[in-house]
């Protein structure tokens, strides 16, 4: 396997130009996301989804206008991949997570599995779509389109270890400059998803940017849940045997596992 590659998105130098959104769509042939005036600052694409794989958030605060380009996190422990029944989602030699559209059957299990709400089904064809970190470009020795287009190097692409070092240094620099609110998000291998392949430098709480503060791989408790479900099934079967009622197996709610998780 090649070195693990990733994104470091430094929102402290994002100028909100959306070149990443456009370059991503151009390269990956992603359709438009509708023409809706949302009246939410300068954001008219709303969120990441099947038709928006890079999304620039605009957050207006008192005297501050935060901009941040969001993307699939390419989690170390990727629930979307865990739950995919067809093998359409796979981990590449770059340690990124990619959907193969010719294999995806549109079951949609991956959609609620994502703790970030990234992967999404496209209404027009039913299949699941998300950022591939430009898998084809990586195989061709090129950086992803969004990073290539970013004029201020807010989006940096490279070996994840290198990016983490660079990010640490950047935070230190910002702290030294008095930007004490600078913090990293998704860089730690100890977090609930084992660390993100795409992590961020933020200037406020993650929730401010619409990011979950404490994401956990939604399949983390799956073994426990299976055990629980198995036990429940046995109990139920016993109860059924006792009461002579029709046997039915409980529907295991692993797709909703994200709502059950507790740390």
């Amino acid at each position, binding site marked *: 396997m090649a070195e693990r590659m990733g994104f470091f998105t430094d929102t402290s130098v994002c100028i909100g130009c959306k070149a990443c959104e456009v370059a991503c769509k151009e390269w990956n042939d992603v359709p438009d996301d509708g023409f809706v005036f949302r009246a939410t600052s300068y954001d*008219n694409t709303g969120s990441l989804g099947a038709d928006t794989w890079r999304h620039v958030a605009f957050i207006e605060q008192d005297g501050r*206008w935060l901009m941040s380009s969001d993307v699939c996190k390419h989690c170390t422990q990727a629930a979307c991949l865990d739950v995919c029944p067809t093998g359409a989602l796979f981990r590449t030699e770059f340690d990124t997570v990619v959907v193969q559209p010719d294999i995806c059957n549109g079951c949609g299990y991956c959609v609620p599995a994502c703790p970030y709400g990234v992967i999404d089904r496209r209404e027009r064809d039913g299949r699941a779509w998300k950022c591939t970190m430009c898998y084809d470009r990586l195989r061709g020795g090129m950086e992803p389109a969004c990073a290539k287009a970013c004029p201020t190097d807010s989006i940096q692409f490279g070996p994840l270890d290198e990016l983490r070092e660079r990010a640490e240094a950047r935070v230190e620099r910002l702290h030294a400059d008095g930007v004490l609110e600078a913090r990293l998000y998704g860089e730690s291998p100890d977090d609930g998803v084992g660390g993100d392949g795409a992590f961020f430098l933020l200037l406020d709480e993650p929730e401010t940017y619409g990011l979950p503060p404490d994401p956990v791989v939604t399949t983390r408790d799956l073994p426990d849940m299976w055990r629980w479900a198995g036990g429940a099934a046995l109990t139920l079967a016993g109860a059924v045997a006792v009461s002579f009622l029709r046997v039915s197996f409980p529907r295991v709610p692993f797709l909703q596992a994200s709502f059950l998780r507790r740390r």
Partner: protein
Amino acid sequence: MAECHPVGYQWVMEARDRGAKVFHIDPHFTRTSATVDRYLPIRAGTDIVLLGALINHVLANELDFREYVLAYTNAATIISARYRDTEDLDGLFSGFDPETRRYDPASWSYEGDEPGEGEPREGGIRHAEAAGSDSYGARGAGASAQPPADPTLRHPRCVYQILKRHFARYTPERVAELCGISEEEFAELAEAITANSGRERTTAWVYSVGWTQHSVGVQYIRAASILQLLLGNMGRPGGGIMALRGHASIQGSTDIPTLFNLLPGYIAMPHALRHDGLDHYLEQEGADTGYWGNRRSYLVSLLKAWWGDAATEDNDFCFGYLPRLTGDHSHYATVMGQIDGTVKGYFVVGENPAVGSANGKAQRLGLANLDWLVVRDLTLVETATFWKDAPELETGELRTEDIGTEVFFMPAASHVEKEGTFTNTQRLLQWREKALDPPGDCRSDLWFYYHLGKLIRQRLGGDRIDRPVMELTWDYPEEGEHREPSAAAVLREINGTGPDGRALSSLRQLKPDGSTTCGCWIYCGVYAGEVNQAARRRPGSEQSWIAPEWGWAWPANRRILYNRASADPDGRPWSERKAYVWWDADKGLWTGLDIPDFDEHMPPDYRPPEGARAEAALAGTDPFIMQSDGKGWLFVPSGLSDGPLPAHYEPHESPVPNTLYGQRANPARRILDRPENPYNPPMSSRFPYVFTTYRLTEHHTAGGMSRPLPYLAELQPAPFCEVSPRLAAEVGLVNGGWATIVTARTAIELRVLVTERVRPLRIAGKVVHQIGVPYHWGYGGGGMVTGDVPNDLMPIVLDPNVFIQESKAGTCDILPGRRPHGRALLDLIERYRHG
């Protein structure tokens, strides 16, 4: 800059990362404001108050770079005793004629340089007729090379003292009162730029059309020039005033101009009545000292490039073949000519005036009154489709069946479908290769005009009147199945050739005798050594930080103009940190990182002999080589139509009085008071709000290149206005809802974005609300996102120097909800006009 030049803005971010402090001064809080050290909101149309106060701060506290100012500017020069300042005349300069609303600039002269009775004078009345002052973009008008001066700067009529008096009333209190910038904010800005200027440090200013599109726009830039000269920030690395252009190669289109009053290289277009022949023209246009002293060489070489062997000494090198001006033929004058029926045909190339120009209704009424119209563009822009979808059809002001205009739409190749150069704002020519063939019938502009020229020549005969066209050199090599003319051959023609037919390498080789050709004298050298220098792409990592082998900069591949000023009068760098070019006494030549401004062997102690001409008339200490006296002009003795110094005037449409002078607005501004172009009365309670237009990153100008593209259109899908929460509450506007903005021209509807980024300002004791309106949308034009045209709100009122419209500061009313349609719209406007 982050909004409209995100790619260039990366270097501002880089500078910040290296410790530069960045201020952003703008009526509305943009993506730039979000990423700088300090944002200062300002009322649109008041920048001269701010810049004037900075100048006053420098002068009053003697913070100017005195050695630089004395040696390199006209601070010591003594001005005519006949000069009267705005201080004396309550906002007017001497020489104003209220009848014609024009200035006679005779009294602004250097002492001893005043013209006699009836003698022509550059600038003022004559130039205002045809924006003659526009042709001073790169040159000084005529003035003495060695005018009387007082190096002690104490003479009451020396420029320094005049400046001190003129700007004394521009105080921080006035800035607070008129601009809405607090005294504390002003103090921070003033301290930052003065502390960051001098021997060791330089400060740069960056502006765009937020400074130019005013009825006093040229004087905004003048004010910045004065400040930068006083602080010693011109001709030095890290200094200067950077004009950001509206899109790619706008600089190129002024160098090789699309402007009506210029020939290539800023040579003034001859006038039908003022210029009899070549000699007479050359006598009248420009000074004999400084580099313009060689203008015969520049013009004769141009005529030789255009008419080849037909151009001879005996026939004035075909000078008589050049078109002639008879007055103002600028964009807005042309549109009025269309409405009046005097202009019958119109070429519109890569432009969309039906949406992009001020007062869209006047534009469309003009288009509808033509015999023929040629539109060349990538898509069917509104200028090509007005006859079937203009808003005037709905109101009944136009009917398709009444429109006689024959419209020819010619699909154009995009910039990636043809080769050629872009010239950017740093005068850098960069050659582009063709990436792919244009689809279908799309062709390059070069192809279009070349083959159109050939067709026209086929139809002309041997009549004398046809000779200017028949004798043109019109023979470029043709390539490929569509017979595309060679762009490289055109660039080589622009570069010029010597008597041996080889490409010239320097503009110093140009001759006045017809032995050289050159299509644009400032571009001479771009094909030096028969090599396309603009195509050079040596990586920055392989050369000095000047990167002289990336592309080619005019003139002479010089990366910073007037770089003589980067060294002290003796030729030594002002500081090691800011060393750029310097005099090497041992070798007896100028050396350093860049190409020096003049003959590299000219020593700093060179003093011109009596009667010297051209560059020989300037001393070895004169950096501003295009000026007749080689000095940076703090005070402009000639060449401007509205005064030798900047003065604050309120915009033509403004909600408050001018509290600086009795004179409210620029007295020389060009007003087109016609039924198609009604104005809002100033200080009118019917139009209480200030509005300003601007661009967003997501779209390009009038939208012709972005609205038809889904990936751009979805990012900003509807026309909208930006208003403060306070104004929204006062008027009843709802975020995401609709608003109608009304001016005397028309009313448009657009969506509402309520944002804290727009702040009400306290101006002259009252709260002034500003409304921001991005102007990218139109009613059709193949756009995926359509809407009313923001520029329809704009009046046509013009700067008198360059005839640019005042589209950055107007007044309006705003109402909640959508506008009426049809006849009811006209009724609404009628009620507003007549109160």
